[in-house]
């Protein structure tokens, strides 16, 4: 299904300063019943990430961290079972998982001699039972499990989606009998930046020559198009020439940049890929 720009704008409008929780997502679904949960979540996630990018810095000043920590300590002192950290995050309009990380870092700074390494923190966020303080462990767990835009579980879901789309794409290529090199093979050859697939024999899709395919498996809003174009796609173009083929739940767009951005590969079942014929 193709999402129009207007629809997209409407959804994005509803997401302004909404906490990234299960409840928000549920409300969103009620508001836009025709959109799939995956689409909504993807848009939600991207909008929220944009929001966090804008406000990230102000939550990381020393004063802010200190004040959050004190509020947390006061809160759990009153009632350790209450969702102190989660509410704090919602109140200051910050992602719960990220708030949990701030507090955890601060906590560890206080209780350990050496400043905690990033990997230790990550590992504790993944498995809160490693956190020495039981109350904090519960609070952190509550935050990570309730956050639908950040946190180890969300990261894993995104990773899994990416992987699944890659597999689907690979199946599609196999099914269409297109020979390709995947990322691992490319990396083995020494490519520094690798798209998901490079077609060994280019094909034409809707009149466009496709040399390589990168599946983003996420909603392609303008901002992310631009960012991907800059961070990845041009790099591929610089190395592998010509075109790109993006899979995404919704809209379809051909960018003006010589890259073909295609969204939704379910549709591709019908797309005739024209093989290169020896003439």
């Amino acid at each position, binding site marked *: 299904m193709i999402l129009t720009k207007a629809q997209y704008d409407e959804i994005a409008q509803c997401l302004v300063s909404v906490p990234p929780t299960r409840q928000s997502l549920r409300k969103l679904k009620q508001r836009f019943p025709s959109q799939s949960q995956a689409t909504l979540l993807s848009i939600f996630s991207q909008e929220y990430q944009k929001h966090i990018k804008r406000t990230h810095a102000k939550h990381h000043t020393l004063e802010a961290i200190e004040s959050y920590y004190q509020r947390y300590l006061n809160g759990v002192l009153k009632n350790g079972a209450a969702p102190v950290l989660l509410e704090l995050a919602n109140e200051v309009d910050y992602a719960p998982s990220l708030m949990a990380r701030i507090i955890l870092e601060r906590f560890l700074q206080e209780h350990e001699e050496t400043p905690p390494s990033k990997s230790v923190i990550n590992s504790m966020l993944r498995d809160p039972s490693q956190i020495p303080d*039981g109350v904090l462990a519960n609070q952190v*767990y509550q935050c990570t*499990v309730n956050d639908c835009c950040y946190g180890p579980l969300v990261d*894993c*879901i995104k990773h*899994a989606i990416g992987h699944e789309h890659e597999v689907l794409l690979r199946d599609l290529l196999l099914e269409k009998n297109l020979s390709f090199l995947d990322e691992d093979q490319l990396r083995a050859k020494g490519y520094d930046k690798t798209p998901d697939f490079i077609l060994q024999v280019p094909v034409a899709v809707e*009149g466009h020559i496709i040399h390589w395919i990168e599946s983003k498996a996420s909603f392609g809003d303008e901002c992310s198009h631009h960012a991907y174009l800059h961070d990845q796609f*041009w790099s591929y173009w*610089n190395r592998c020439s010509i075109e790109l083929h993006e899979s995404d739940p919704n809209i379809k767009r051909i960018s003006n940049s010589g890259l073909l951005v295609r969204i939704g590969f379910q549709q591709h079942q019908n797309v005739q890929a024209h093989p290169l014929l020896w003439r």
Partner: protein
Amino acid sequence: MAAVLESLLREEVSVAAAVRWIARRTQSSEDSPGEAAVLRSLRPLRKEFVPFLLNFLREQSCRVLPQGPPTPAKAPGASATLPGRPGGPPRGGRGARSQLFPPPEPPSPAAEAPLARRGGRRRGPAPARERGSRGPGGPEEGVGGESLPWAGARRLRGSGSPSSPSLALCDPPNLSNLEEFPPVGSVPPGPAGTKPSRRINPTPVSEERSLSKPKTCFTSPPISCVPSSQPSALDTSPWGLGLPPGCRSLQEEREMLRKERSKQLQQSPTPSCPTPESGSPLPSRTGSLTDEAADPARVSSRQRLELVALVYSSCIAENLVPNLFLELFFVLQLLTARRMVAAKDSDLEPGPGVLESVGSPLFQSIHDCVFFAVRVLERQFPVLSYLDKGTLKLLAENERLLCFSPALQGRLRAAYEGSVAKVSLVMLPSAQAVSFQPETDNRANFSSDRAFHTFKKQRDVFYEVLREWEDHHEEPGWDFEKGLGSRIRAMMGQLSAACSHSHFVRLFQKQLLQMCQSPGGAGGTVLGEAPDVLSMLGADKLGRLRRLQERLVAPQSSGGPCPPPTFPGCQGFFRDFILSASSFQFNQHLMDSLSLKIRELNGLTLPPHEPNDDEGEADVDWQGERRQFAMVLLSLRLLAKFLGFVAFLPYRGPEPPPTRELQDSILALRSQVPPVLDVRTLLWQGLRARRAVLTVPWLVEFLSFADHIVPLLDYYRSIFSLLLHLHRSLVLAQEREGEMCFLNKLLLLAVLGWLFQIPTVPEDLFFSEEDQSDGFQVDAVSSEYGLDSVPVVDQQLLYTCCPYIGELRKLLASWVSGSSGRSGGFVRKITPTTTTGLGAQPPQTSQGLQAQLAQAFFHNQPPSLRRTVEFVAERIGSNCVKHIKATLVADLVRQAEALLQEQLVAQGQEGGEAAQLVESLCSQLCPHGAQALTQGREFCQKKSPGAVRALLPEETPAAVLSSAENIAVGLATEKACTWLSANITALIRREVKAAVSRILRAQGPEPAVRGERRGCSRACEHHAPLPSHLISEIKDVLSLAAGPRDPEEGVPPEHLEQLLGQLGQTLQCRQFLCPPAEQHLAKCSVELASLLVADKIPILGPPAQRRLERGQARRLLHMLLSLWKEDFQAPVPLRLLLSPRNVGLLADTRPREWDLLLFLLRELVEKGLMGRMEIEACLGSLRAAQWPEDFSEELATLFNLFLTEPPLPEPQLRACELVQPNRGTVLAQS
């Protein structure tokens, strides 16, 4: 000159003798003693004859051509007629000079005002009158500066002075009057750059001329050189052509146009300005002029014209003129002259006799012009017949030509019909990025990660800049430096390490070659934008569409018949990039890299061309070679152009050094600097090896960027001298065996002619060469064959290299409107004209007799055989290496892996130092590498013959075939074994090392991940729910359980069951499962189990039943146990079940129910998922944590209970437990 002409006219001297005389050949016995005597007496003038002739013709024609398209402006060598002109003085003495100008011809040198001289390379701007006379449509910018040199004479005669030529006759300019010729002595010899003067004109400076701008480039016509015109002059023009005098507004418009143009020119960073825009005037521009019909019957003095035409043609044929095509252009201008400017009657009165004829105007009417032109063209037919088909067509259809010489027209038509030389000048810049080159762009080729990273970034910045340029450079007002300069410099600033510079330069150079090298190189993508439209048209229409596109896309004009060096299209980007980067390091690396590549490409060898080959076959074969040659040549020219550009960049300036002293000091300094590339040696070698056709064109490109000083340096002077000798030797008419092919010669003549017209090349260079007769005996090493004698050049290449030849066609097209000729025709084959000397012996080599035999064998076979064999050998040899890699080396790696596993097992997963492991493995395995040679030999033996057989024609005789096969086997084996014996050990080492690090890495954190059970069953259709979906669902349950939640939120019990069912499916399918997802699923499932045990999952339903029924909980736990046992391949973090946090969940349930936990623990043990000891340890550590007192007690009880359980519980006991759900609780409470 005049004396010579007169002698000719008096028939004292035959034309042949005269030409011999001019060409400085030794006197032949054919010359009669009388002739010899006459000529001897004129000896001092010999050198100056040709320049004089050329100037004479230009001057004579100026009345005819004013409105014509740009005349090849430079009347070459006019300077030679001048007294004391720079460079010339020592030789041409004054006395000689005055003899040179016998009465008849003085006006010519007098024609131009000295100031005008400064403006242009002797094509001083025309007086305004002249321009005005061109008529309203007369494209001033196209013509203006061009016809000037001789224009002055006209004015002198026709306009102002009542005196007819006779006046001039008796009143030669006082050449010795220094005041009248100020520049003479003061101008340093070795005129460079903007020639201060080519000709010194004694005539007074006309007012208009003072405005003439300094010339920017000699032929560059019009625009830059046209002085601002004075409309008033228009009125006084005696040759008003019937135009209303003084169309002021038009003049004003032109003036504005000119200003605008000159502004653009100034902005253009090209050192030598002229933008290619002058173009030939379109017919419409001259539309208001009615063409005068030319009638052969009305030619005035046939004999004289015939004679001059003969001399002129002979000079052209002998390459005595600097630029063949310039002369052709001039002749075609005469042919297509529209009208004769009205002249005074006195001018037209033919002299009473032939003798006087030199004095009277040569061209008295259009008829004379056309007659002369046709006579010359007749003699130049061989050259014409090699022009492209379009030009031939226009020539053949020219009615004047038909009228004056039906025979020539017939020959042209035949040539046209036989011609296959369709030339397309469309440039299709294809901006494709240079693809990633794994072998050089690898991390291994960089000194550090940082350098590698920087290079990666640079690559992206470079393409970003390139794309931006592509998008914007055609926008008005966009400025390269402003738009991109700072970014480029920032990027260059990051290239700190020398190695990064070379990497970047490599990229730069590759991109340069890729984008600029070949016009229309990518054949398939002609109209890239609209493939669907194209496909709708038939092939026929497609052809027309292409032609149409060509007309639209091809540059209208390349800037006249002699444009200055420019950087068209994409080349502009690279030039601007170099200029903007202004990085010394970059330039140095670029020069190094360009030089290297030039050397490499210059060594191109093509297999000898067998003229005796069966025609069709050879031609097909030959196409490839020719294409290859064209590619290499174009690449070389491009590279050399940029090399010249960069190398001379620091020295370039608009003006030559102002004083002699300064110039001398610069010369002294510069002569110390070694040339960036030893072009002299390369040229010398090229000439000796008879490869001038490859070497000279790029050398010309290189030299075209030389600065003013360069031609004065000894080193380069000798190069120019060589080139001049070469130019003279390329007589088109001579086609001797082993000589250079016609088109090859034509190419060289064209590029050399062009070079001689470059502003920085001294004007006198061409004519001043003293000793043309001696010397040019390049003893062509009788190499087996040289490229020169191979027909490597075709018209396409000729026109691509010298787009200015296309000006001929444009000139004709502007004359002929409408077209009637039919296209098509027969394929004309350009057949090779040379044979290679069979006797030539291959040089003695170390390969010995076998090699000589092989050479001899190939020699007697068609060249395709040799190519095939070499090709097969090359490919098979290369494949052989790959084969060894895939078989032998892969086997060894497998052995290494097995050995490593053993070692790892033996050392208890320890492994030890990776480097040590690699060492020990390699020492065991590398000796096996010796097998590679035998295996390689076998491979080549097996594969080569088949390939050779498949590629050779079937009728190849058996003996030849088997010899070819054997040679292929031998060559392939040699190639493969050479490589293998040198590299096999390193290869094995590298592969083993990679394998070891792979294994050790896999050994790392998750040894269990290396599952053997990967992948789902064959029957699986992959319809299982996606892992991402499952994780998301489970996460929802977990977050509900963790709260906070709304009162109405909860999970339906059947949903949990469904979820676990789906999890089972997903784990069994595995199609979409990646390790991290599985790990998270495992962890989530453990969390779920803990929640079940603690009864913490909020169940949807009436408030009374918000807890999960016991039996249901057990069933779910069972499902989980089975998933853990059967389906998970990733390790399940079951210990988490007994983490203080998860057990703590039980703490705040009342009443606490321990039975599920106990049940779970027992099942874990029984299913072998956890060991008893492990659980005991966990329980033990649990007790250490801080708990409420009652909870601790209950925990202790549980511990005891678990301990009392028999290590191997009997089945019935478990069964009984299942039916007694509350037992645990009871026990715990007791």
